[in-house]
């Protein structure tokens, strides 16, 4: 192809920024650090925009770019190669765009922090890996990004490493991700074993002729399942979601960027990237859908009772990701990606706004210590409001379109079923409930906290030493540099959904998911993309049901709003009563169903104990070394007994000699007469 997009520059630019800040940042002034970080992330964004525009201008045919050879061994080959199609376009823009905004925001948010340069170094590093992930043209390069973003999140979660909880959270995130990667790796091995390549294009072409595995098992199914394991790890799905809530130990911009907008969605991206596998593995799809649905509901329920503002958002993220997987699971990849995008907007915004709130109240994160902030920090309040309505799915905001799309697909798609839809709606209700709960608790009613103490509070809450030192008493609006991104994102989450009207977004992505139909389609259930086309000019009753369902979901959202208003605005004393009434259930939910405790008891503790007692002390020292030492001891004893042959007595010696002589003579005589 003639046009050259220099895609490789897009990831490399942030990497350069990271390198500069990493090696030299220590000596830089904060301004310089910020300058570097901004420049390179902005450059990446600009580059991305340019590339996309080029890409679209030439008729948006998939574009591949081989940078260099990477691994070539024993017939296997994986290169540093990048790939651009509609799917990666979406991701690219989201990542670079949101990423850049958050760079802006962080400059303000982290200004007072120690290790300022470190933070931006990590942030740029993350951008590099995330972009590599998005732009990869084969699974292995994708895996680079995949692991890399894990590393970045490890570093950023543990940014305040002097705090043990932060350090452990980072470690937990990395290890849980590793468990997912394990599945991912196995999937890759299967691909290599059977197709000898990891290149998306080659794979899709070589898989294209294969039929749908109706039997429910088979190569593609297992690959799909394993990929889903990987995705579950990265995107915090059941059972591997546990790391995400802890990840909130990191600075809020990090939560916004990595744990809401971009990294956690990598799983969704990967699954839809592998659609050509899933489309041929219905049971894998079902698995994805079920996982997604359950996660959505499960996390949402936990979200209800969380009091830490960021924890609420974290669980909501988990549940939203569940939505996306539900979408992928029912074959509505484009819907999933759509929600991914909108979610990136409003959830990013939510986190940033929450950060702004925390910043305002001096590091306080507990909603019970907030309230009545509406007037004090208006910009934050309004942006937050937009985001809240968006996520709750109140039309015409972004969340409404994407969520509704997913629910409709879940109901209508041949892979779907009304159960998914039902759970989806319930989740939607819960979502809007806890989101408005957050909204009310934070911005309405009386201010329950003390800003001054908040400053002090901030110190140990996390390393917000600055806020103490900042010297400002009372609650204050965040600086411009933080508000601008809020506003931009607010706009996006208000009208970002409009791109989805009349399936525009779908049709944009269609070439990607059309690319490979299952062979023998008639024997198999028709592929989602086909559905989409058949449903393009949807017949009347189809239309009817769609609108009906839409109405129901809107009602659910409103119901959530009302309930939240009831409980947390008009009658604030009710929730406690309900909690008491529910009793055990409530505490169970409050403690996140004791999942962490369960894991600790079932996996971690036995592992440690077993390795210590059985393996190390038992086998290593008890068996192996003991055998060695004992045999040595035995040898010494034998030796001691042997040397007693040397009694020192002449006559004994003569005795030995005589006996020996006798034996020799016997032998020889026997030999002679034989």
């Amino acid at each position, binding site marked *: 192809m003639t046009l050259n997009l220099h895609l490789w520059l897009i990831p490399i630019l942030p990497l350069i920024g990271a390198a500069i800040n990493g090696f030299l940042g220590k000596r830089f002034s904060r301004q310089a650090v910020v300058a570097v970080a901004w420049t390179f992330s902005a450059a990446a964004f600009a580059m991305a925009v340019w590339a996309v525009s080029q890409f679209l201008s030439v008729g948006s045919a998939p574009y591949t770019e081989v940078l260099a050879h990477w691994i070539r061994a024993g017939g296997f080959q994986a290169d540093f190669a990048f790939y651009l199609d509609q799917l990666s376009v979406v991701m690219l823009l989201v990542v670079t765009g949101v990423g850049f905004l958050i760079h802006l925001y962080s400059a303000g948010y982290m200004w007072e922090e120690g290790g300022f340069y470190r933070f931006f170094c990590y942030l740029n590093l993350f951008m590099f890996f995330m972009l590599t992930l998005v732009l990869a043209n084969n699974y292995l390069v994708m895996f680079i990004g995949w692991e890399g973003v894990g590393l970045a999140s490890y570093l950023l979660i543990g940014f305040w490493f002097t705090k043990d909880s932060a350090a452990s959270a980072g470690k937990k995130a990395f290890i849980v991700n590793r468990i997912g990667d394990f599945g991912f790796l196995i999937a890759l091995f299967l691909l290599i074993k059977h197709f000898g390549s990891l290149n998306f294009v080659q794979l899709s072409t070589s898989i294209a002729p294969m039929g749908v595995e109706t039997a429910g098992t088979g190569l593609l199914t297992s690959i799909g399942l394993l990929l889903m394991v990987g995705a579950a790890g990265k995107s915090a799905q059941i059972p591997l979601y546990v790391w995400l809530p802890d990840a909130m130990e990191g600075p809020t911009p990090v939560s916004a960027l990595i744990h809401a907008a971009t990294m956690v969605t990598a799983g969704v991206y990967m699954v839809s990237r592998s659609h050509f596998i899933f489309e041929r593995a219905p049971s894998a799809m079902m698995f994805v859908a079920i996982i997604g649905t359950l996660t959505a509901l499960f996390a949402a329920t936990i979200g209800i009772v969380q009091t830490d503002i960021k924890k609420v958002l974290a669980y909501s993220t988990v549940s939203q990701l569940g939505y996306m997987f539900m979408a992928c699971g029912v074959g509505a990849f484009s819907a999933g990606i759509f929600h991914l995008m909108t979610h990136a907007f409003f959830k990013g915004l939510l986190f940033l706004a929450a950060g702004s709130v925390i910043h305002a109240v001096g590091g306080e994160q507990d909603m019970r210590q907030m309230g009545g902030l509406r007037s004090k920090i208006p910009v934050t309040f309004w942006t937050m409001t937009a985001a809240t309505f968006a996520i709750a799915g109140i039309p015409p905001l972004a969340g409404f379109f994407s969520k509704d799309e997913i629910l409709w697909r879940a109901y209508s798609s041949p892979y779907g079923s009304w159960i998914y839809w039902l759970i989806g709606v319930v989740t939607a209700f819960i979502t809007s409930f806890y989101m408005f709960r957050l909204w009310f608790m934070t911005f309405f009613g009386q201010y329950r906290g003390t800003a001054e103490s908040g400053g002090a509070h901030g110190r140990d809450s996390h390393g917000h030493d600055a806020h103490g030192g900042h010297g400002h008493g009372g609650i204050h609006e965040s600086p411009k540099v933080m508000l601008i991104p809020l506003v931009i994102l607010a706009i996006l989450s208000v009208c970002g959904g409009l791109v989805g009207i009349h399936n525009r977004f779908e049709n944009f992505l269609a070439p990607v998911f059309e690319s490979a139909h299952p062979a023998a389609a008639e024997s198999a259930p028709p592929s989602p993309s086909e559905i989409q086309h058949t449903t393009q000019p949807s017949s009347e009753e189809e239309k009817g049901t769609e609108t009906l369902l839409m109405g129901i979901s809107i009602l659910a959202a409103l119901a959530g709003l009302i309930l939240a208003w009831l409980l947390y605005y008009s009658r604030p004393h009710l929730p406690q009563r309900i909690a008491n009434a529910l009793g055990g259930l409530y505490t169970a939910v409050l403690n996140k169903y004791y999942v962490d405790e369960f894991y600790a008891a079932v996996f971690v503790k036995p592992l440690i104990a077993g390795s210590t007692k059985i393996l190390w002390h038992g086998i290593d020292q008890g068996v192996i070394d003991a055998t060695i030492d004992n045999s040595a001891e035995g040898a010494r004893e034998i030796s001691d007994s042997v040397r007693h042959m040397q*009694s020192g*007595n002449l*006559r*004994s010696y*003569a*005795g*030995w000699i*005589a*006996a*020996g*002589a*006798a*034996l020799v*003579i*016997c032998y020889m*005589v026997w030999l*002679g007469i034989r």
Partner: protein
Amino acid sequence: MSLHLVLFISFGAVCVAGAINLLVQRHPINSALSLVVVMGSLAGEYLLLGAEFVAVVQVIVYAGAIMVLFVFTIMLLNAGEEEQTHGSRVALLIGVPGMVLGSVLVTWVLFSHSGTGSVAAGALPGPPKTLGRLLFHDFLLPFEVTSILILIAIMGAVVLAARPRRIQKREG
């Protein structure tokens, strides 16, 4: 029962008796004397075999010189009755049985498989002349080498028997 056999048996009997006496006697002097007896009677056996020269040397060197040396040493160290210590079980439990086994075998071999016939008295034609020729011609080298052996013996005796030099110094 020829005279030869009679003489053989009588000498042999004395010889064995002496040997056994050597073993049973507790005092070294007695053992020494019984050893002299053994050697003397052996000289007799040699004569019976017609090895006059050997017989004579046996008497002179062995019974004479060597045994005198022994007796002299015993006297010098005035060794008394040997005390009955039980230093070694091995010698009795392993050595003696081994010895018995071995000697039985050897005796059996010598008796039945020695491939020897029987000889008349003085059968061996060993005039000293031929013997001397053998000794000074064919076996000249060993003969000369023995001189070195004796030299060593002298030196050894001097070195070991002489009192340690330190003590001498202290005295002188």
